């Protein structure tokens, strides 16, 4: 989740920077440490040969620096030390599900039987891979209660695109053109962006005083021009949409479809099946609920579960099984209703392996405990902080707790300042300024893989910071962070004068 930037203080505003163990030494770019003749890879000698390059051999130099292996290893090790991570820090980033990433999953994804597997090998030689995809599909279908799943999408946003394109195709197959998509104002930005990309007009539904879809407004917007509602459930306020069944019934009665954003599936995994809530299509972020690592921004994986009615429009390719084994349906002639291909090759296999390892490790009983503990941890934080911070809505919450900045009123301290102060405590901030439905939002998602001791430390820290904010020490907050590798960065400068690459001096 992102937050709006804020101009950093000018250099020298705080001359007494506290070094306190932080590694503030600048690590030069590889381009500043290389010498062209160095190389970190040894290769065998070239055989004598005759070029067949049609005269297109590169003439000039590329401009890449040369470094030996020890230099490269030290450089990236030192860079890594400038990062916060789940491994090193409590990371309660709301709506991102920053849970522990089991190392078993990494080990299994690297098995030669998968890592060295080419996507275009003969089908008989990749039966284990197809079986794994099929098994994962079984888990996803069973956990959601849905009859079909499209596996190939590269991330949540592509999953959304898949789901909404499928809905558009289903409407077209009925001979209908519907132009409107409804989305709550608390929706992730990808929802309206996806709907707009598909040519839909997006209509926002306001939240009611309980942080949920305003049912009356929603019903008033229904009509023959509405194609679908895109609803995140649990929503981005961390609340379960109580009226889910009524929403589903109304949307279906209007001839439209129910798209669910499954980004927050972790709250209900193993306990509630979206099929039982009337959902027609829903993407699942394997990198959230099923712990495939976030990797500093990707890769992700976004399978989409589909109702029986929508299944025939699913994208290519997909795995089927017959008496001779597993097969891949790769061509439109074998799937005439398919929306077509959304991804090169067959999807994010490396993520599939990790997600299946996660599911097998937990089992049905473990997943039941996952959602239970995730919800318990969030409610524990809510209960422990609601007297010193302002909770936006009445609980109980699901897997994340939403606070706003009313408790900072008249202190001069902002949500951003508070977040930056947390960095000095070795804690990654919560999601800030999202969702947009409350002022100065702070969305805290602890996940189930944090111990009570960690939560207690966090709670004590938050209480201390909240009290400190109310003491009127604005400057202290505005100067934070002090102990991080760098202090506040000037985002305005970066946007006003974009420098997006190194250039030789």
């Amino acid at each position, binding site marked *: 989740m992102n937050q709006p930037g804020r101009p950093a203080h000018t250099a020298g505003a705080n001359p007494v920077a506290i070094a306190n163990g932080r590694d503030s030494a600048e690590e030069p770019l590889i381009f500043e440490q290389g010498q062209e003749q160095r190389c970190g890879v040894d290769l065998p000698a*070239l055989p004598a040969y005759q070029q067949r390059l049609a005269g297109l051999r590169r003439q000039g130099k590329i401009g890449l620096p040369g470094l030996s292996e020890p230099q490269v290893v030290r450089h990236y090790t030192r860079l890594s030390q400038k990062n916060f991570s789940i491994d090193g820090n409590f990371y309660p980033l709301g709506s991102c599900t920053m849970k522990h990433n089991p190392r078993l999953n990494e080990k299994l994804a690297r098995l030669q039987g998968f890592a060295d597997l080419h996507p275009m090998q003969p089908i008989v030689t990749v039966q284990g891979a197809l079986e794994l995809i099929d098994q994962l599909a079984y888990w996803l279908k069973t956990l959601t209660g849905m009859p079909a799943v499209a596996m190939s999408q590269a991330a949540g946003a592509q999953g959304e695109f898949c789901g909404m394109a499928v809905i558009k195709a289903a409407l077209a197959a009925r001979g209908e053109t519907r132009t409107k998509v409804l989305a709550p104002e608390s929706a992730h930005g990808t929802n309206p962006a996806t709907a707009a990309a598909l040519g839909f007009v997006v209509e926002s539904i306001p939240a009611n005083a309980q942080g949920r879809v305003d049912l009356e407004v929603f019903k008033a917007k229904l009509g023959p021009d509405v194609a679908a509602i895109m609803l995140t459930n649990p929503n981005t306020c961390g609340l379960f949409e109580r009226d889910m069944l009524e929403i589903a019934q109304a949307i279906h009665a209007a001839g439209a479809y129910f798209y669910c954003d499954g980004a927050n599936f972790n709250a209900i995994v193993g306990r509630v099946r979206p099929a039982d809530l009337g959902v027609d299509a829903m993407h699942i972020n394997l990198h959230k609920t099923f712990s495939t690592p976030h990797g500093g921004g990707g890769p992700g994986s976004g399978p989409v579960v589909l109702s029986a009615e929508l299944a025939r429009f699913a994208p290519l390719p997909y795995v089927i099984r017959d008496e001779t084994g597993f097969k891949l349906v790769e061509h439109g002639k074998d799937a005439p209703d398919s929306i077509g291909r959304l991804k090169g090759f067959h999807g994010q296999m490396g993520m599939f392996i990790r997600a299946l390892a996660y599911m097998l490790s937990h089992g049905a009983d473990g997943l039941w405990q996952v959602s239970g503990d995730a919800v318990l941890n969030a409610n524990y934080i809510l209960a422990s902080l609601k007297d010193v911070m302002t909770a936006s809505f009445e609980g109980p919450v699901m897997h994340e707790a939403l606070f706003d900045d009313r408790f900072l009123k008249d202190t001069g301290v902002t949500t951003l300042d508070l977040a930056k102060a947390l960095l000095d405590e070795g804690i990654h901030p919560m999601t800030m300024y999202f969702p947009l439905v409350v002022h100065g939002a702070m969305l805290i998602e602890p996940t189930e893989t944090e111990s009570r001791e960690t939560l207690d430390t966090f709670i004590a820290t938050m209480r201390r910071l909240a009290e400190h904010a109310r003491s009127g020490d604005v400057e202290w907050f505005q100067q934070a962070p002090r102990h991080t590798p*760098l202090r506040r960065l000037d985002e305005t400068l970066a946007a006003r004068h974009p420098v997006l690459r190194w250039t030789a001096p």
Partner: protein
Amino acid sequence: MLMRYLPLTDADRHLMLERIVVETVEDLFVDVPVSARLPGPLPTLPGHLAEFEVERIIGGLAAKNLTAATCPAFLGAGAYRHHVPASVDQLLLRGEFLTSYTPYQPEVSQGTLQSLFEFQTQVALLTGMEVANASMYDGASACVEAVMMANRITRRGKAIVSGGLHPHYRELVETMARSTGFVAQALPPGASLHETLVEHIDGETSCVVVQNPDFFGRLHDYTELAEACHAQGVLLVVAVTEVVSLGLIKSPGEMGADIVAAEGQGIGNALGFGGPHVGLFACKEKYLRQMPGRLCGQTVDAEGRRGYVLTLSTREQHIRREKATSNICTNSGLCALAFTIHLSLLGEVGLARLAELNHALATKFADMIAQIPGCRVRNDSFFNEFTVELPFPAAVLVEKMLAVPILAGVPVSRFYPDEPELENLLLVAVTELNTIQEMAAFVQGLREKL
């Protein structure tokens, strides 16, 4: 219940429920309609397993696959088996890289941000372009995003797609065209000549999409095509599916490309049955604000020290919502890091040598195959992959060669099942990992099967 990833004990849970003032965890799910609450763990799924039990199951699935690790393999067609130095993966497994989120808190994300800045610089240099973004899902998605960007820039809605573009890339463009409402005019497979492409340009054309080396392995100089496009206000999009080729071949930028969409898998990333890979996306600086995806930029911190942040995010969905340039949120961060580390190890000299070694070995292989009666190498030019014409369907040969076992290549018919004239064509690729002995085994196998 004891479960290795879950730290809460029953004593913890009891204490926490007391603070929340509810009796049970189930009480926290009161907002879920009763009819949708499951009574307990799903009986149709198994229970939890020990680490070694999971290893046994998934290891068993891995063992059912035949891979290039255990037999000679000559497959390419958009995914290439190159050697990845051991240090690359060791660094990727550092938890600070592996388990961090998108670097939205720059004070504690300089590791990710600086490596993205290095990545963007490497991609710009390699493609010969001015700017690059922080990666896309893969080459195919980069290609379709390039087309949609060209549509936005030119305010036109027709893309002309070369018959030399990878079929999956073409299919993605076609899917997007159908779903979002623009025209994709795809030429027949193989049709990639300058004249053929130019004659389809009209006033509605936003871009021409070509590939180098093309899907059949042929090399092209697109300089004249770029000029012809620009004369009519059309952008040239160049796709590259084998990124190592850029170490030896004139870059798309030098040929006048406006946008380059490449697959970066060949540097730093395993085949992995096709994903996750990493899309490279580069363009001319004047189109910067129409770019999709994340961008990392240089700035200073409060003490004036150099640092990096994600920037120009007003293009992106989390700020612009329905007016964003793209719905993309997640990128391919860790795969981009693998690319950057491997390319740092290679450097100028290493990449050039690696690329030349690939080409040299491929010429040896082409010469060996050309001597077999009945077989014909169709390419006059190539990098490390070329098309062989056989006297019978290529899929048949591939199946027969499995008996050796050899993974003989990719039959063009796998992508084009309904084109009889392509049925006998086999794509074969060679990398630094293929030995002369493997090539000899291929040739011997081929002679026996003919």
